[in-house]
């Protein structure tokens, strides 16, 4: 039997079984509040016996049964589980709708017992007599209260089961309304029968006055409480957010710091780790409030692709690459080739010019032209001095750009270093 209750009510009998069972009200297969079924499960008795006991207490114990039942209902928390609700009045069909279940034998017996009990009860208290004036309204109010309380149980239960279709909600609303109506009718009858109908106006006025008074007295306190509650919820949301941040920082930053400590003598590796971590953290911190165009995950645009490529080269070669992108446009096949050429240039810059400082990558979309420059502050080199058989720059950068209809220029930057400039026209239809 699943355990859902946190506390055991004081009047719950102790269970002597080693696996401690806690008392809860059964949410499944219950007739009223699930008290009888819960107790039966707890005591290991048939449900019928418990129900009969309650009925007997109800009729011959001067209402003790009702009191007990109500106390259990109020104090014992609702639980899940129990046997599947074959005692429920309703069944849930595979398509999610609920419909009235065909009564089985046990249910009929229970109903018959209920009617017999009710008959005995009615004959005992002589409804027609003087005291009957009070009994009928009380019964009505009681029925209404029971309906509403069951409703409250269902609301709690809805937290566990998400299957609340439109029919279910309609049914619930109808039930709540019926409960309220019953209570209202009961109270009205009570008032009307108790005094004479002529005094109804006075009674209503008095009631209204009392209600307004109570509202005035309790109003500020209630408002305060609601505010406190919403504030508390806000705090909780914030705390949750903070916890998320902390979790992320813990995970990745601590991890990186550990790795850095282990590789302390390998300066290149330390730098690589630190850069990778910085980039990740930066992404994580500034992306949500970023420029909006950074939000796509897979590089569908030029800016994303350039940044991603630079990050990969940076990770691989341990040389910081600073990226500045102006404008953006969707990637097409030609731009893909340009990115490839740029990657080649970045790799070259990282390999041969990395010791001069960070590699600068600049990409700009201006009208139909996309311009990418990759610049390092290394020693620089002369393309004409590179032997014919070394195909890296010639094929991967210049050749690739020319095959796709773009241009690549390689030149020495003013104060040492090398700059590769790649220019490409965007595909005509991608305007």
């Amino acid at each position: 039997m699943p355990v859902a209750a946190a506390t055991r009510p004081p009047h719950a009998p102790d269970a002597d079984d080693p696996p401690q069972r806690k008392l809860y009200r059964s949410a499944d297969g219950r007739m009223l509040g699930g008290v009888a079924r819960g107790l039966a499960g707890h005591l290991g008795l048939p449900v019928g016996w418990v129900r009969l006991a309650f009925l007997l207490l109800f009729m011959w114990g001067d209402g003790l049964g009702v009191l007990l039942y109500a106390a259990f209902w109020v104090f014992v928390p609702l639980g899940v589980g129990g046997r599947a609700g074959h005692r429920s009045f309703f069944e849930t069909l595979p398509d999610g709708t609920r419909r009235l279940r065909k009564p089985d034998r046990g249910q009929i017996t229970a109903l018959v017992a209920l009617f017999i009990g009710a008959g005995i009860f009615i004959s005992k208290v002589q409804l027609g007599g003087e005291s009957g004036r009070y009994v009928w309204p009380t019964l009505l109010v009681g029925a209404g209260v029971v309906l509403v309380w069951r409703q409250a149980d269902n609301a709690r239960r809805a937290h566990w089961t998400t299957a609340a279709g439109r029919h279910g909600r309609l049914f619930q609303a109808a039930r709540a309304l019926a409960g309220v109506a019953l209570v209202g009718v009961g109270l009205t009858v009570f008032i009307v029968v108790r005094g004479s109908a002529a005094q109804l106006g006075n009674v209503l006025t008095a009631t209204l006055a009392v209600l307004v008074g109570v509202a005035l007295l309790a109003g500020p306190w209630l408002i305060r409480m609601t505010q406190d509650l919403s504030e508390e919820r806000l705090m909780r949301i914030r705390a949750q957010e903070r916890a998320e941040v902390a979790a992320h920082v813990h995970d990745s930053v601590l991890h990186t710091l550990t790795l850095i400590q282990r590789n302390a003598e390998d300066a290149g590796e330390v730098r690589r780790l630190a850069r990778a971590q910085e980039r990740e953290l930066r992404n994580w911190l500034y992306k949500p409030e970023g420029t909006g165009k950074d939000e796509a995950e897979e590089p569908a645009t030029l800016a994303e692709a350039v940044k991603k490529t630079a990050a990969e080269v940076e990770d691989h070669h341990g040389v910081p690459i600073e990226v500045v992108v102006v404008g953006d446009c969707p990637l097409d096949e030609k731009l893909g080739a340009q990115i490839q050429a740029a990657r080649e240039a970045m790799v070259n810059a990282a390999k041969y010019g990395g010791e001069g400082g960070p590699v600068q990558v600049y990409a700009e979309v201006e009208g139909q032209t996309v311009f990418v420059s990759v610049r390092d502050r290394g020693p620089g080199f002369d393309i004409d001095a590179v032997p014919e058989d070394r195909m890296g720059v010639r094929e991967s950068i210049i050749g690739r750009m020319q095959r796709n209809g773009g241009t690549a220029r390689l030149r020495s930057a003013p104060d040492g270093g090398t700059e590769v400039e790649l220019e490409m026209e965007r595909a005509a239809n991608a305007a």
Partner: protein
Amino acid sequence: MTEAGENAGTGETGGPPGGSRGRVRVVLVDDHRMFRTGVQAEIGETDRTGVEVVGEAADVDQAVTVITATRPEVVLLDVHLPGGGGVEVLRRCAPLMAAAENPVRFLALSVSDAAEDVIGVIRGGARGYVTKTITGTDLVDSVFRVQDGDAVFSPRLAGFVLDAFASTDAPPVDEDLDRLTQREREVLRLIARGYAYKEIAKQLFISVKTVESHVSAVLRKLQLSNRHELTRWATARRLV
């Protein structure tokens, strides 16, 4: 943190006017003590240049107090600060910035490279923006340049500005005021590509002073252009 008292020891008040490389008094505003210490150390290494940290502050209130008390030439200002951020410091120090004699100048120094942070402090009146990855030498250089009244742009800031002015195609009415000239755009582009001012001068066959005046003009336009493009740009990106 009460480093504000340090200023009592400095005898001289104000650097020599005229932008000569004398002593520059600097206040450091950053909420990370480790970073302040680091900057102190880096500036200290290049001490011969004469940058002197006369005060530190860790939040907005402290910053305003320290800056008012010490009247430094340059404030190195972090963008993210408890108490309202760097923008708030700029707002409350506006009279000091506008002072006719010994105006206080601000250089934003931030780890953030989010566009709204950068553009925010620049429009608040900061004379430049550099990221915290900058080397000590470059930082000292930037401090001197800001003290001289020039603007200092990091490649990223240049990128943001180009983005701001380029992404709108239809020129608004006040176009000669708000648009960048061809030369300014060229200069910005080279800054964004990682060129130093000196390299830009060489590349464009102009003097370094001209480069600096172009950059200052860009900065002024950036601060002025709250009418058309920047507003639209910022609105389009939900920054305002």
